[in-house]
């Protein structure tokens, strides 16, 4: 009896971190599972908070709520453009910051860090103050400016970490083998940095697509992004279709990463 308990305790002790880890994963997944389940709900009234009846209705009529699909389209567009611009200029900056020593490098690093250390509400309001002072109307352009700004720092830090972990000797080897600087960059440096750049771009897109606070300060009356649409709808009851979009984005993200993972592991197998 005593030995059974002590065996059980020993087993628990040995596997504690795994049990705790799995519990936390379950906690992280819980709201997402609720979102998925309630995308099949047919609620009574406008509030999709209490389970009533199973239905594919929201899945077959995704764009039924007025303006929702336009909002999703706008958010996707803004996310792609913001991520693209932030990734290009952020990657350039990351290379400069890791590979070169110059005066003002510390200040530049600090300047890159500051937007991450600024609450969204401060960033949104200061940009709005500028736009008002200059007399710029809020709209897609102002949203893009804001989104590129707050995603830029995340791209720079992500790519910087990757570039810093790369061995400069590989590029020297390329140069020794008579590669031109551009050949060395595109055939050696860039492929090595690519996972970091891709992670930065994905993070930038996710942050942009997810953002409500900064956007609410810099959006015009006709530029309703998806988070703004949800916020507006939350007052009177969010349509079930919002859960459908959430589910699609969630599963889509997992699929993208799984595919990227597959490509990565096949590549490493080939190289091995």
């Amino acid at each position, binding site marked *: 009896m005593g030995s059974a308990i002590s065996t059980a305790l020993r087993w628990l002790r040995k596997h504690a971190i795994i049990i705790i880890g799995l519990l936390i994963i379950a906690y992280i997944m819980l709201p997402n599972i609720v979102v998925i389940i309630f995308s099949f709900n047919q609620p009574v009234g406008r509030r999709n908070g209490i389970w009533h009846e199973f239905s594919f209705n929201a899945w077959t009529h995704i764009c039924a709520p007025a303006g929702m699909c336009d909002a999703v389209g706008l958010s996707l567009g803004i996310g792609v453009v913001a991520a693209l611009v932030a990734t290009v200029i952020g990657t350039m900056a990351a290379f400069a910051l890791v590979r070169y020593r*110059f005066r003002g490098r510390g200040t530049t690093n600090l300047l890159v860090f500051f937007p991450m250390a600024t609450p969204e509400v401060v960033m949104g309001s200061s940009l709005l103050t500028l736009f008002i002072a200059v007399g710029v109307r809020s709209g897609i352009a102002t949203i893009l400016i804001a989104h590129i700004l707050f995603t830029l720092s995340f791209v720079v830090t992500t790519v910087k970490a990757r570039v810093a972990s790369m061995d400069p000797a590989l590029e020297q080897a390329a140069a020794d083998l008579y590669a031109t600087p551009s050949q060395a960059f595109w055939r050696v440096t860039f492929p090595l940095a690519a996972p970091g750049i891709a992670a930065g771009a994905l993070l930038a897109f996710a942050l942009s697509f997810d953002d409500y606070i900064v956007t609410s*300060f810099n959006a015009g009356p006709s530029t309703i992004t998806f988070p703004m649409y949800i916020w507006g709808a939350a007052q009177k009851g969010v349509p079930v279709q919002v859960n459908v979009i959430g589910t699609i984005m969630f599963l889509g993200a997992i699929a993208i990463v799984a595919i990227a*993972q597959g490509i990565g592991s096949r590549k490493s197998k080939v190289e091995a």
Partner: protein
Amino acid sequence: MAFALPGARPRKSAKRRRGLFVPAILLLPALIWLVFFFVVPTIALASQSLQTGSIYQGFQFTWAFSNYTEALSTYWSQMVRSFIYAASATVFTLAIGFPLAWFIAHRSGRFKNIVLVLVVAPFFTNFLIRTLAWQTILVDGGFVANVMKATGITGFLNWIGLVPNDSLLGSPFAVICGLIYNFLPFMVLPLYTSVERIDQRYLDAAADLYSNGWNTFWKVIWPLSLPGVVAGTLLTFIPAVGDYINAKILGNANTTMVGKVIESEFLVNLNYPIAAALSFVLMIIIIVMVSAYVRAAGTEELV
């Protein structure tokens, strides 16, 4: 997944190169963006906070420091509340995030990448949708509410003032839970990159030298994780202070945070000077706290 956030990786010695031309060209677009859309707006904000007037008559710069005293005397409770909520949320996020990061880095085996994806994937289900889902989970008479009531947890939370009306929704408890949940990935990712590089043999060595689990954690694991802890706590605490989505969706009028006040003063009352003053105070407090914190933690490699 090569996610790495500030402080995650010690810099390798970069090669010293001559000439400023190439780095200048590479940095130019990012610098232009940061200067024109971050530095200049911050100056505009500081200037706005010292102006008087109204949206209809126009604003004049008058060194109106009275805006600050007015803003703080009216809204000091929301300001203090925001810092208390964000600090409590950060402590709990660290407590949840650390074992998770350790589990992913050292115990998840070949499922490592899948688990990492599960941690990041909620990013893609919208922040607002997730928070609304918590509304469904914590609803009165729901499973969670019933279990917490039956086990006396609600009673305890009521006693310490976190659930004032016996209803989980609309309580500080729900708001802090929302903050913990929503910012957990920002804690876990930098922690993971730090923790992942801790060599298992250090722990064996500690055990060989008769260190118990407690000592091994505080003398070996914790110091080596510090860069990740600092980066993670900053990336959780800072956005949490300014957040008002959780307070709005999961709280009530008594849980309003300063972000909401700034938003209403700016976008509803069009009282730009007061809103700018509050915004600027928030920024200054955070900068002071962050510098003190980074210095105390001794992780100069943060940026």
